[in-house]
Structure formats: C-alpha cells, structure tokens
C-alpha cells in the first residue's frame, strides 16, 4: 500500500516536472497551475505513504537509504509548496519537482525493507529527532540553492542587458535575495539542532558525544561553512550575487556530506555490512 502511494507520488512529481519544464520552454504566462496541482497531489500521496509505512513498521521510517531519500524529497516538496502558496512561481516548481523526482527514483532503486534485524541503536526516539532536523536543514539549503541559481542567472541577464522573455517568469532579484536571507538562519538552526541531537544520541547509544566519524566530520565542516555564511550575511552585509554564490557552494558541501560521504567512507552512519545504509547527516 505505502509502496503504491510512493510510486504514485513519484509519478506525480515526474508529470509535474514535465509540465513545468515544457511550460518554461514555451514561456507563456507567469503561472503554471497544472504543474503545481500535480506536485501537490504527489505530496499528499507521499505524506500518506510515509505515515502508512510508519504504522506498518511500528517505528519511524528513517532507517534506510530509501527512507532518507524519500523524506528528503518530501521535505523539499513541502517547503516548496509553502513558498508556492505565498507566490506561485513556475521556475521554483521547475527546480523542486525534478529534484524530488530524481530523489524518488533514486530511493526506489533501494530497498525499503530491512532484511536483517534492526540495529537496536535505531529503535530510539533520537532517530526521528536527529534525522528530521538534519534532513530539514538540508532541504532548506536545497531551496536556498535553487533561489541562488535563479538569482545568478537573472542577475546576469539584467547586467548584460539581455532580458529576453525568460525574466518574466522569474521572481524579482529582491524576492530571491529575501528568500536567501530568511532561509539561511533557519537552515543553519536546523543543521545545528541536527548535529547536537546526533551528539546526544551518540552519547546515549555509545557513551561518547563525538567520534570523528566521517559523516560527523563533514557535518562539522558544513556547519562552519554555513556559520561563516551567516556571519557574512548578517555582520558584513553580504547580499545579492555573493550570497547566491555562497548558497550554491554550501549546497555542494551539503550534498557531499549527505550522499558522497556515505559511499566513500564507512562509519556510524553507513551500516554497510547490512543490506541497507543509513545516510544521516
């Protein structure tokens, strides 16, 4: 049941992506309601699917790679939907929907089932707390990077005086920069909570707060990067293009920590010996 809903959600995200992208190519009008309708329908199916999996398994579905990618996609779509409700923008949709689609299809290549008995460490309340914070932080940073990409692209068009007709469907530079300014502290706060909750969980599970496991190390590097960004933005008043470039650079780091580290380095966060792997930031 949850798997059917998951597939329905993935297909809706895919349809929405196609609608959004063709809409951008034709660049007619400034709203794409059908694209938004499909991505929202996908979100509903996705939400029910996750709840259903939770009820079926009896613990938070956050233990496998499947869960992590699925939840990450869910968070991106959810945050995107909140932003869309404030001001429908086809370009934001055209970025969020394809990313969600890719994540969903990546997740579907992994097994959601745990073939071996679940590691006792994962049967803890810390699991949903730690994973939710970490993934929510990542999702906020993803949206921020999308805004940054739009900012850089549009800024270039305006500077070069090659306005074309594409600018009509992009939000104003001011809107995009405001998004960056508001999202940065929120994402940073969530990332901080993710790391702290991880440390507390580690302490209760293994008796030590910090083990310099690769994921922990890279998370800390990411944390410092975003801390620097917050400082530049708030204290030095960096804005506009610089802030947008930083958002993209930070996102690359986030993605490496999220996915790259799990493949490259074994550690607490990747239970590589079993049929599943955990990608906790």
């Amino acid at each position: 049941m949850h798997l059917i809903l998951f597939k329905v959600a993935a297909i809706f995200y895919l349809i929405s992506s196609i609608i959004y992208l063709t809409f951008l190519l034709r660049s007619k009008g400034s709203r794409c309601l059908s694209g938004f309708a499909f991505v929202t329908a996908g979100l509903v199916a996705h939400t029910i699917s996750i709840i259903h999996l939770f009820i079926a398994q009896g613990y938070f579905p956050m233990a496998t790679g499947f869960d992590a990618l699925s939840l990450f996609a869910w968070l991106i779509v959810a945050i995107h939907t909140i932003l869309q409700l404030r001001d429908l923008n086809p370009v934001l949709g055209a970025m969020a929907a394809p990313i969600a689609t890719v994540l969903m299809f990546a997740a579907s290549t992994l097994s959601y089932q745990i073939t071996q008995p679940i590691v006792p460490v994962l049967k803890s309340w810390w699991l949903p707390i730690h994973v939710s914070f970490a993934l929510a932080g990542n999702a906020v940073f993803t949206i921020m990077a999308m805004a940054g990409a739009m900012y850089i692209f549009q800024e270039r068009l305006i500077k070069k005086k090659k306005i074309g007709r594409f600018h009509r469907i992009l939000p104003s530079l001011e809107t995009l920069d405001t998004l960056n300014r508001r999202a940065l502290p929120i994402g940073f706060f969530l990332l901080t909570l993710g790391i702290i909750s991880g440390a507390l969980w580690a302490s209760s599970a293994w008796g030590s707060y910090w083990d310099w496991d690769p994921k922990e190390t890279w998370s800390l590097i990411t944390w410092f990067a975003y801390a620097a960004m917050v400082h530049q933005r708030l204290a030095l008043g960096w804005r506009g293009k610089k802030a947008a470039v930083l958002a993209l650079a930070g996102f690359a780091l986030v993605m490496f920590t999220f996915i790259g580290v799990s493949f490259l380095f074994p550690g607490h966060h990747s239970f590589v010996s079993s049929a599943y792997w955990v990608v906790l930031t």
Partner: protein
Amino acid sequence: MTGETQDFLVLGINHNTAPVLIREKVSFPGNQDGSITRLLVQTQDVVECIILSTCNRSEIIAVVADADSSAENLINRISEIHGVNRELIRPYFYVKKGPEAVEHLFRVTSSLDSMVLGEPQIVGQVKEAFRRDAAANTTGPLLNRLLHRAFFTAKRVRTETGIALSAVSVAYVAVELAKKILGKLEQREALLIGAGEMAELTARHLTNVVKKPIRIINRTFENACILASQFEGSPESMENLGEALSSADVVISSTGSCDPIIQFSQMKTVMRRRRHRPIFMIDIAIPRDIEPEVNDLDGVYLYNIDDLQAVVDENIGERRIEAQKAGRIVDQEVRKFMNWTTSLEWAPTIVALKEKFEEIRINEITKMNGKLGSLSAAERESIEILTKAIINKIAHGPISFMKQSIKTKKINQHVDFVQRVFGLDEFVSGTEREEIETPNYEIDHRN
C-alpha cells in the same frame, strides 16, 4: 434571422487609413447617450447598429439588409451628421461585409488592429460602445451575439497568447525592470536628476507605483522646484547628489551636462556606503550622465536609453509573433460564428418541417379514429409511438441534408430545395417566395 438578405457590415476609418485631420472630423464625441447611433439606425435597410469611436478609429458595426447600398447610405449619413463633404472622407473609408466584417471586429476587439499591438484599452472601449448602444436600443439579437463572441475572442487571445505580456514603451520597460530588480516599488525611493521629456515621462510612470515622494535634483534649484511641484516631490540642490545616490533605489538622469556627472570612482564609494544594496540607474541623457563602467559595480544596474529601446524593440517583435497565434484564434472564432449564423438559416425550416409532419400525423390518426375505437389505451399508445418514430425517421434525411450544406456552402439552395420538396412555404415565416400549390400529402395507410 439573417435569411438571404441580412448581413453584417463594418465601415470606418482608422489610424492606418486616415490622417488625424480626417479622423478628428469623423469622430463621434456627442454620442454618450447613443443618440447619434439612433440617428444612424434609421438609415434605410439598417437593422442594428453600433458606433465605435476611439482616438484611433471611428467605426460603424451594423446588421443591414443590403450591404452595398447600406454602406454608401451610412457614409452619406455620417457626412451629413459631421457636416463634411462626402467626397472628402469617402476615400478613407474601409467597408467590410459578412465574414470579413466579423473578422475585422474580432481583430479590433482583440487589439490586433491597434496602433500599439495588444494594448489593453480597446476591449473596454468596445464594451462601452456596446453597452451604450444596447441601452439606446439600436442593437438586436445578431449584434448582441456578435459582440459577445468578440469579447470572448479577445479574452481567448489575452489568455492564450503572450500578446500583452511585454512592455512596449521605454517608460514601461524602465518600470518593469525596476520591479524585476527591486521587487515591490511602493516603499522605494526614486531620484530624478535633470529634466527632459523622456525623463519626466519615465518619472511619471515610476511615481505611479512609488509611494514615497520623488527627489529631484537640478543644476538650477529653481527648475528642481518647478518639477518638484509637478511631481509632488522634494527639490534638492546638486551638492546633495552623493547623499541622494546613497539612499535612492531608482535613479533617472537626464541633464545637459557635457561631462558625466556620476563617475565610476564616486559610485564605487556610494556603493560601499550602500553596502551594495541594489540600485537601478537610468541614463537618458546624451551625452551620457553616468560613466558606463558604473554598470560593472556589484549591485548597480545601469541602463541607457539605447538599452531600454533595445528591450522595447525585442518586446515589439515578440508581440508580432504572438499576434500570429492570435490571428489563428480569431480565424477559429470567425468560423464558429459564421456556422452559427448559417444555422439560423435552416433552423426555421427544421421547425416547419417537424410541424408539418406532426400535423399530417395527427390528421391521419384522427381520420382513423372510428376504426381504432376498439383499441385499448395501451394499444393506442403504441400507435402514437409508432407513428412518431416514422415521422422522425423521415425528417432525419432532409434535416441532415440541410446541416451538411454548411460544408458545401450551398446553404440557400439546400434549404430552398427542402422547402420546395416538402411544401413548407406556408410554414416558414418571413421568406419572400411566390406561392406554390401545397401538394397533397395524404399518405395511404391502408397499404
């Protein structure tokens, strides 16, 4: 119904066919109550009539009995009303009939015939003309339907094409760009340096959106004061330029200075002071007021008049492409509308045909009443059903024969043929035809 005799007619002059001198002679300023339309509708053979009068066009949209003679009669009437020589204005008039007239009205209402392609006012002007003349009782079922289809077409064009999306004047482009850079402009600050027609026009468009009073700097303070009173802005002297640049969000510069008044080095300092808060600078002056290198500074978006004009040209090109799409929508709607008017021509004949068959059926059943007396109610019911089915089957042939005529465009021949074969002349009202003997349609039920 249109029958064979009623037709749509559009005649008029517009910015393409007539110079201003002629256009102003044939405008209809005193027609707020539709009284002039009422005068025109009294013209011989004119059945319904609307006057559309804007600064770029004066048009009569009418339903007439004879398009050719009515057109000349109407032009005579117009020259009488305006007291101008008919021969003087006649060459500037275009006359369109039937589908061409319908297409013309649809194009005008969709703003495809406007001086500025896609400008939004025209549909409102047509609506107002229609409302006024409908209130003056000069319209009837045909024009009512025609105008509603015109508004529907205009709406389709607006929503299905991008014809009205892009700005096509320098001032509008400037405001659009300001919005693109700065978002909402209400609480932004505008600064006007110098004066000049284009600069003032742009400032006027800008102050429509910007709620804060515009700051105005001029080399002579008196001139700044004069402009400030026009714009309800605040005048400042040239010494305040640096400070004004630090706080303004949109700058329009148009002085007669020979050397740039805003240099790169000065602007660099200003931007540092602004912490690179974005600023949109419009340089309308020739020679330039602002050094072009300023555009390289982070957060500065500098456009000169040529840059803005290039955007305008590009947008106009885009509107032309969209106008082609719009043309296809208009064609579709004209075809639909003409099909509808054609259906008016066979509709009465279909009604007459059915009435005639029903009459025959009732007559024949009444004749047989004596023999059928012994039948039960249920059996009588069956006979009713049976006879109705028979006449429906028979009627089907001629009806579809007439409907098919839409494709072959021989509607009148087909309708006429059906009327003659079934002797429907007495049933169809309003057709002029010589009396022919109604054939005897007694159907022999005994066989």
